[in-house]
Structures are given as structure tokens and as C-alpha cells.
């Protein structure tokens, strides 16, 4: 973790923090009444009102936990894809839950990158068009040197004119990573980015994510259920039953596996 850097505060702007994303008292309930599912925190008669968690700037954090523990729900709320039932989410100094849909959309477009497990690319656009899509939606021009650097790092130079259907699963995921990295977002969120890949292709994608953190200071938050994948991260946050159940710094596959066993998964 990097030490806090002294920064000048601009009037009207929220003060910068060391955390890229932070949640406090976060709850998410699906449905209501007796059939309500408390995906995140908020259980009646339970001490925990909600989830409090923070993700450091320039770090690679993995969110882990058994299936159904609320990993995806947490990530959706943090990324402004879903509206929490209670609590607050801060992206840098911006509080997300008070934003209107269009503001939230623009925030995702300008400040957040996404890599999903599957269905990451638009079938009608070629690889290049997919990579620059969020910037084009924002009406911004990608910096050509940065674009070349990203594409080169991903080894996709000769595949740029291909449509997704003509790319392998690993290539498609690398295109998705390139798309997420190109606008230099505040945070890249990845939900099981290697879930559909074989181990070699998966390792390539994880290497990419890690090197973007090491070399360019990119913040990455990744959801995974694979201890080997989690071992690429700087830190692991463990979830169980919609609550934070543990925190591991500098994880290895073994330490993560042990911690998961401790949760009874």
C-alpha cells in the first residue's frame, strides 16, 4: 500500500482519499417480506447493519467467497451498476447512491472499466472498435501512444480488424481488458474474468491485470472464486453470507484456500 500523498484541496471538490472505492453500511436486499433475500448485510436481528469495505488506489484486490456469498452483488453496487438498498458508495470523493441515472452512466463511462465473465464484446463491432467504444461514447479520442502500448502489451496487434466471433475466448477477454484499461479509469472491476477460460488463457489475462497495476498504477478490483486467481492480487477480501469475513494481504493460493476452508466452503 502506498503512503498518503499530500494534495491541495480544490474548493467544491470532495477531498481526495487514499481509497479508490469505499463502501460504508452497504446493504442490498432482493424482493421483500418473507421471500426477501439479503444478498449484502442488513439481516434482521443481526449486529451487522451493512458492509464496510475500502479498496486502495493503485492496488490489485480480489473479492473471494463461496458461491452465493454476495461477491457479484458487492461489485455491482461498487461499480454503479446496481443501486444498493442502503448505505453509501464513494468513488474517490464522489458518492454514487445520490447520483441520477444519467450521471451514473457518465461516471461509469468516464471513470470505471469493466471486464465481465462472458459476453464482453459487441458482436457487430471489430476488436479495435470494441476497445475504443467507451471513449467514443464519451466523445473522447484515445491517446495513440497509450493505445499502441495497451494493444502491444496484450499482443492483439494483428487481431484488431477481427470481429469477436473470429477470436478465441482468451483473445476476447484480452480485448475486454484492453477496453477497460484504455480510458485510464479510476478503477477496473472484473467479475470472474477467467471463469470461462482454460488455465493458460486465464493466466495471461491475470498477468495483464497485475502488470497494469504494477506498471501504470491502475486500481483493479476482481471477483473470483478461484484461489489460484486470487493469488495474483495484492490483497484478498473474503465474503460469507453477505458480510466481510476476512482480509488477507499478499495472498498465496494456499493461504487463500486455507482461509476459505475456515469459512466452511
Amino acid at each position: 500500500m502506498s503512503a498518503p500523498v499530500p494534495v491541495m484541496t480544490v474548493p467544491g471538490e470532495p477531498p481526495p482519499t487514499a481509497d479508490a472505492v469505499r463502501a460504508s453500511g452497504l446493504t442490498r436486499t432482493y424482493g421483500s417480506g418473507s421471500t426477501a433475500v439479503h444478498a449484502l448485510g442488513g439481516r434482521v436481528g443481526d449486529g451487522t447493519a451493512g458492509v464496510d469495505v475500502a479498496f486502495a488506489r493503485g492496488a490489485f484486490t480480489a473479492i473471494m467467497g463461496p458461491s452465493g456469498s454476495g461477491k457479484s452483488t458487492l461489485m455491482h453496487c461498487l461499480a454503479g451498476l446496481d443501486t444498493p438498498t442502503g448505505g453509501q458508495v464513494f468513488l474517490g470523493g464522489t458518492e454514487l447512491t445520490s447520483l441520477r441515472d444519467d450521471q451514473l452512466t457518465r461516471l461509469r463511462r468516464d471513470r470505471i472499466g469493466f471486464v465481465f465473465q462472458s459476453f464482453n464484446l459487441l458482436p457487430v463491432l471489430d476488436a479495435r472498435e470494441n476497445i475504443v467504444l467507451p471513449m467514443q461514447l464519451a466523445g473522447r479520442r484515445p491517446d495513440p501512444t497509450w493505445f499502441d502500448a495497451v494493444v502491444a502489451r496484450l499482443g492483439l496487434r494483428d487481431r484488431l480488424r477481427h470481429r469477436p466471433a473470429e477470436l478465441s475466448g482468451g483473445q476476447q477477454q484480452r480485448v475486454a481488458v484492453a477496453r477497460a484499461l484504455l480510458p485510464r479509469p479510476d478503477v477496473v472491476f472484473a467479475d470472474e474474468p477467467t471463469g470461462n477460460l482454460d488455465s493458460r488463457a486465464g493466466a495471461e489475462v491475470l498477468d495483464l491485470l497485475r502488470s497494469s497495476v504494477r506498471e501504470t498504477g491502475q486500481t483493479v478490483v476482481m471477483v473470483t472464486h478461484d484461489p489460484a486467481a486470487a493469488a495474483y492480487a495484492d490483497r484478498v477480501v473474503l465474503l460469507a453470507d453477505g458480510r466481510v469475513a476476512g482480509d488477507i494481504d499478499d495472498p498465496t493460493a494456499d493461504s487463500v484456500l486455507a482461509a476459505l476452508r475456515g469459512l466452511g466452503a
Partner: protein
Amino acid sequence: MLRVITAGLRAHAARLVASTVAIVIAVGFVVATVTLSETTRSTMLEAVGARYTSTDVVVTSTTGAPLDDVARDVAALPGVAAVDLARSTSVQALVPGRTGAQYLLVDSVAEDPALRWQHLAGGALPDRPGEVAVSERVGAEIGDVLIATTYDDEGREVTSEATVVGVVDLRGDPSAGINGRAFVVGEQVETWGGLGPSELRIAGWPRTDPPLLAAEVRSGLEGQAVDVRTGEEQAVREAEALTGDARVLTLMLLVFGTVALLVAGLVIANTFAVLLAQRTRELALLRCVGATSRQVRRSVLAEAAVTGVAASALGVGAGIGLAALVSALVGTDSPVPLAGVTVPLSAVLGGLAVGTVTTLLAALAPARAATRVAPLAALRPLDPAPLRSRGGVRRLVAGLLLVVPGVALMVAGIAVGDVLLSVPGGALSFLGVVLLAQRAVPPVVAAAGRLVRSGGVTARLAGGNATRNPRRTAATATALLIGVTLTSAMVVGAATTRATAQAGLAAQYPTDVVVTGNSEDGVPASLVGRLEAVDGVQAATALTAGGLTGPDGYETWSLGVDPAEAAPVLRSTDDLPLPAEGTAVLPWWTVDTWGIEDGDEVTLSGDGGSRTFTARLGDTDHPLLTTTDLTALDPDAVADTLWLRLADGADPAAVVDEVTDVAGAAVPTAAVTGLASERAALDEVLDVLLLIVTGLLGVAVLIALIGVGNTLALSVVERRQENGLLRALGLTRGQVRGLLAWEAALVAGVAAVLGVVLGTAYGLIGVASVLGDYGEVVLSMPWLQVGAIVVVATAAGLLASVLPGRRAARTPPVAALAG
């Protein structure tokens, strides 16, 4: 299986709404057309046939000779109870309160009360000479005294008076036209110069069988030059003479009805295809649990049948309702009178059958495709690959096989000017075009998509989306294409017909209205100004009249015109050239009597001397010189004739009434004639046609719009994940709506542009082969309307994207992750 069907219908009710509405509109249109045409026929029969309702047998002369002698023979027959000797004439009548005389058609009233058919709006029918009953159009009231002007055998003017004793309600009888009608006793018709009876209306004794009586009369009149018909036969005959044009209209409307059904069929086929594509897994699951492919097909067809019957029934109801509405709006006060609605059973049954069969036929191909769903499809993830058309090559070949000979037939039709060749040629080639369109549309949409790439990311995405499922895009666009093609063909055809007909009419009748003073002293000079001041009169010019002696030594009534003043009054100088100084425009009869050819020298003389003119032949009744030339030869010549040009769009009947009043006030003997009403009648027919065509654009566009909306709605369902991804990556709701709007605009715009191009070609070809026979065709391209069609069709497409767009915009970003 029944449970599955009903469950399917319930679950997909929303999607089926599109098919249902398409069928309701198409069937409704056909039923309304048939019902209105039947209503027109029966209304007309009632109006025209009114005079034959109490008539058992009618005798008419085949030669036009008077039937006085025949009447005596008929009256002597034992089966005949009464005979009415129907006579007619015409008079110029002056109604109190009006300054100008009007032209009245006069008919005799039957002596026998049984044969009197007139419905009285008030008063009574005349019993003796000096009494008259008039139609409402005359504008006289009971007790008014009409002053009638007639001419005796020597051509002398005779005036007589007649008291109005009754007003007759003609109940929308269109045969009177814009003229008033008068009814008097037979004796009065005779004193007003009527000829002998032209028609005998015969009543038999009570409980006579008309055909039997007709046979008796026929054999009694053996060898005489007469036609004998029953009253009913005569009524039908006269009504048909009048509704002949309405029939053509009905036929045309039915052609459009067929087109509406074709378009509806495409929309339905598309709906079912997509519905089934969405249900691939469901159908596969059915197959997995043991349903045979036959059962699957039957369940799909049963679903179509239920939809078809229900929608057709709604359509029949809607059609009858529409006909009733039109009938109520139009009423009997129109050139095509309508009273109530007459619903022929054939319209009801035909509508039901046609709608159901269309739906079933449209569902046939998708049902066949559904049976090919493999049970394993239930276990595979949904295949996002676009459906590839296997019938593509077959369709291409079939299309070409129809288009090539069709076009050849049309070309031959134009070359020999025969419609009988062009029409089947047009039909063949259009069917071919529809088949080819299925293949041609996707590449064109793709090209158009590349064109709009500069419109930003949304436009580029829309271009890609529009061509993802070529078959669906083609079917959607073709539905719109058919409607637009036919509409623009009609619009272009009507414009050219109008231009051609107007050019012909203008040459034939260059003056709208002619006022003659019929007085020694001529008309006052101020009359030109006063007539020009009449609302609806655009220009007027006065002609002098005088007597000149021609080469045959006889004095001929001649006219002098100021060419500069007359030029703006005449609609055309093709057939009636205006004279220059030293030129005389001579009537065609001078060719025989004076031995004149065009360009010859001709010497005319009058009280003021004589002069040699260059002769030009033209459509005029009297020699036409310039005013200066005429006055030089005949110093006594006075202005006695006025030519008027009416403003386009003015109501000729109203203007002529006012002109009659103004002229009558200045010169009591003035007479007003003119052909303005013919031109107006033609314009009205064409306007009605264009209005109907606009309505058709509405119907075709409405159905196609449903198709576009339906296709988009299904795309939204299919691309839920994709739209979620776009939302996650930062596409705002407005941009999502824009995405669908672009997609709709692309498909609709391409269909509209292709349709307009095709339609223009068909319209011009059609007019060229129909009118080619009658002389020069004046091509006219209604750019404004054609442009409007493209705009309306594209805008309709955009409109169709609104609802699906809203739904797509509501897709939550998390949908992308829902797998």
C-alpha cells in the same frame, strides 16, 4: 397439445397483437371497400330507379323517334292499366330574387297517380299547365312565379309564367348534375317545345307479374323499333351507366386491399418466425419430452388459426364500422351518394376467409421451420448466429424468372400502347421484385449503414444491428416497400394523368365561361370590370361582334378580340390560335363552304370596306379577327361577348351562379355557358383518387409500421444482454433509444427510397401505356408528394422505434451479467 397452444397464445399475446392488428386493418379495409361499393350501388339504384318503382314495364325507342303511336298500341293491350308518356324539354327560367336566368331540365308528370314517382319535400305535383314543381337546387319556393323563356319554331323568344306548386326531393339522384329540374304536366312540356314522348312507363293491373307483362307488350309491339324492359331492368341499367366509374374505383380499391393483405401476410410471417425463433428451446423441450414434429407443426398452425379467425372477425366489424362512418360523413350530398350501409354477406364471409387463410399461409413457413428444431437444441445455449436463408438462390431465380418477362411485357405494352400487355407485365414483375427485394434489401441497408457511420457510435452500431438478421430485415423492409411502391406509383400516375388530361381539356375548351349579351347594343363596357370583381373569376375580356361578308357572299357573324387581353384568359391556344393584325382565324366549316386552307388569303368585307387576311383555321364557331381589324371593316360592331377564366380551385357552380346574376343585372338577355364544370369534375375525380391513395399510404404504412415496431421489439428482447453491456459501458438511456431509432430509420428509409424509385417507374410506365393511345403524354413528377412519402415512411419507422426504444432503455446494466 391444446393446453400448450392456449398457454402459448396467452404467453405471447403481446407479440401476437402485431399480427392481429395487421390482419384487422387489412380485412377491415377489404370489407369496408366491398360494403361501400355495395352501398353506393343500392343508393344509386334507389335514387335513379325512383322513377321506375311503380313502373311494371318501360318502352324506349331504339331510334329516338317519338312514341305517340306506340303509346296508342300499348294502351290497347289488355294487360295494361295505365301508360305515362314521358316527355322532356328544357327552358331558361328566371326565379324571383335572382337576376340571371337558369337552365332547367323539364320532365312531364304522369297523369295516372300510380305512375307518379316524385317524392315531394313540400306542396303538390302540378295538375294543369301554368303549374310547376321544381327540384331543391332551383331555389324557388312554393307560390313563386317562374318566368320561362323558350323559342318557337321561327326561333322567336317566347316567355311564359308558371307558378311553383311543389318542391321535389331527388334523394341524391346524381343524373341531374348541377342543373335544376322542373316537373310539369305533359301539355306544358309540349308548349315549352318538348318533342313527343321518348319513353313509355306502363303500369299493369294489381298483382301483375312485370316479366309477363313485358312479354305481352313485346309481342304487341312486334316489328316496331322499341326496347321493352321491366321497370327493374331499366333502373339497374341506368344506375349502372352512372356507377360505371364507381366500379372501376371499387376494383382499384380491391387491388389495394389485396396489397394490404399481402403486406399483412409478410408482417404475420415475420412475427411467427421470430416468435418461434424465440421459442426454439421451448419447442425443443417439447420434442425432448416426446412431442412429434407433426404435433409441433399442428400446435403452431392452430395458434395461427385462432389468431387469424379472431383478427378477421374484428376486421370485419371494423370494416363495416368504417363503411358506416364514411357513409354518414359523405351522405347523399356528393357525386357518389351514400345512404346507410348495405352489408353484402359476401363481404362478411369473404373477409373472414381471406383473413384466416392469409394468416395460415403466412404461418406455414415458420411452422415448417419449427418442426426442424432438434430436441438437442433445448440443451444448447441459444445460438446467436443469424438465420441464413436457404431458399435464397431459389428466390433469386424465381424473382428473375418473373421480373425479366414482366418487364419485357411492360415494354411491349408501351410500344404498342396496349394496357392488356402492361398490366400482367406489371403484376408479374412486381411479384418478382418482392422476391428479389428479400435478397437485395440487406446489402442496401448495409451500404446505407456505412453511409451513416459518420453519425457517431450509435449510428455505426445501428448499421451493424440492422443487418444482423438479414432475413428479418428483408421481410420488415419489404412490407414497407410494397406499400410505398404502390402509393408512389399511384401518386406519380395520377399527377401525369392530371397533367395529360388537363392539357387535352385546355386545348379543347380554352375558355372556362362565355357570356353573350344577345342584345343589339352590346354589353356595357363596365361589365368586364364587374365580372372580374366576382370572387373566383381570374380574368375576363370583351369581344366585339359584327357582320362580315365572306367569299360566298353571305354575311357571317364575326368576333373581334384583343389578343393581348385575351391571352391570359385562354387556357390554351393549341386548338384556338389568337389572330394577329391581318390574320383571320376561321372556323373549320369554311374549309368546305369557302374552300379555304390554312395559310390561304381570304377577303372579308363590311360596311367599312374590305380587306384581305391570312387565314388560320381553329376551333371557333365564328371568324375571329383582332378588334381593330373588325371595327375597321364593321364600324357598328359592339362588344357583345365576354370570355372569362375562373381561378383554379374556385367552385364553378357558385361562380357561374354569381356571374349569371351580375350579367343578368347588366343585360337581361345575357346567357352564360361554359365548360368550367367539366374541368372541375375531372379535377374532383382526381382529387378524390389522390385522397384515397393518401388513405392507402396510411393503411400500408400503418401495417408496415407495426412490422417495424414488432421486429425492433423482438430485437430488444434478444439483445437484452448486449444492451445491458452497452449501458454498463456508458451508453445513456437516450443513446439506447437513439440506437433503435437509427436502426428503424435505416430500414424504413431504405425501404421508402427503394419503394419510391420503383413506384415512380411503375407509375410512369402505367400511365404511358394507358394514355399512350390517346395522344401525347405530359409527364409530371410530383416531387413534393414523392418526397413526402419518403419522409412519412421514414418518420413512421422512427415512430415505431419509440416503444421498443423505451423498453431497451430500461434494460438495467446488470442485465449484461445475468448470462
